């Protein structure tokens, strides 16, 4: 199964690099403009569940890495096996300068909250996303807080430590 998916991917797309680190993991490194095509290709081959969209900040290489994890559920007419389910990890790199990517919501609609989260915490804008509104954060941050150059210590000292104690003042 693993080998056949690897072969199919390598035949269909030229620039993909497929590695198999474990029996149940296949890592697919693709170029930025091929992500959606690869996701759609895998969805057609029954990997129809997007488990996670994540992001990594490689600050020394000045790149963000987007990670899509795909897997599948057992179908009703399938015979049960003890094998663990296969996870496909699609990785792509985008530039840290003005980071931008295309949204995967057209293929997997459950990518929406993940992409909103990444937009909020890493500042990556997703083209064509239906609503990139704030999700978790209440305050405004100059640098999105999950980037590696965001200094949490300095931020806490400037914001939360500056707020005085109420009872101390009265003494």
């Amino acid at each position, binding site marked *: 199964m693993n080998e056949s998916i690897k072969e199919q991917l390598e035949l269909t797309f030229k620039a993909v690099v497929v590695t198999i680190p474990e029996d149940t993991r296949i890592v697919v490194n693709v170029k930025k403009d091929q992500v959606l095509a690869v996701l759609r290709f895998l969805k057609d081959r029954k990997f129809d569940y997007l488990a996670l969209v994540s992001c990594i900040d490689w600050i020394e290489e000045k790149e963000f890495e987007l990670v899509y994890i795909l897997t599948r559920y057992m179908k009703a007419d399938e015979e049960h096996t003890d094998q663990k389910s296969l996870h496909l990890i699609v990785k792509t790199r985008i530039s840290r300068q003005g980071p931008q990517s295309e949204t995967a919501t057209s293929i997997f609609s459950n990518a929406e909250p993940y992409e909103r989260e990444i937009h909020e915490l890493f500042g990556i804008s997703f083209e064509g996303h239906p609503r990139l509104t704030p999700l978790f954060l209440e*305050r405004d*941050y100059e640098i999105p807080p999950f980037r590696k150059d965001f200094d949490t210590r300095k931020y806490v000292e400037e914001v939360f430590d500056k707020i005085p104690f109420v009872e101390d003042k009265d003494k």
Partner: protein
Amino acid sequence: MDRNQITKWLKAPAKMANKYSLHAIYFCTGCGIIEVPPVITSRWDAERFGIIPVATPRQANLFLITGYVSVKTLKPIIRTYEQMPEPKYTVGFGSCPINGGMYWDSYNTIKHLDKYIPIDGWIAGCMPRPEAIFIAVTHLWTLIDKDMANGYIRYRENYESYRRNQEMALGKLEWPPLYPTHSNVKAVENE
């Protein structure tokens, strides 16, 4: 009923009634709330101590804050606290509300909860055992007896400072002040 307490009951019946019927608002923050279900159900049975969880802040007079408080959670905490009828008591549960705990350097977690609302007691630990809640409650009884659980009075007296701190953390608040503050009394006088 304990016979030694008859004089206390005769002196201040309302206070004694408050003390033995602490209604805790079921407000979940962070991980500490996992200790509350065993406390209120049959294993530790908090009703022995007169504690019962209630659904709305309008019926509650004990507020347990059970874990780290993010900036987003701070807003409902303040609103819940302000809706509770007096007398009301707050207890910070776990090390995170006390000084941030493991969220000391967090970009989105407020560190000292007592900068924003008054706290009557703290339960230290990460996590505290359910028994610690009962120890805290018996301490709270002592404090109520001695009129030292006066968080709601301190809140009224220092409301301006609390409100300023809340606005420093949350930006402009969309609800009006609970008590008249110096600045808005002035504004009314000028009109």
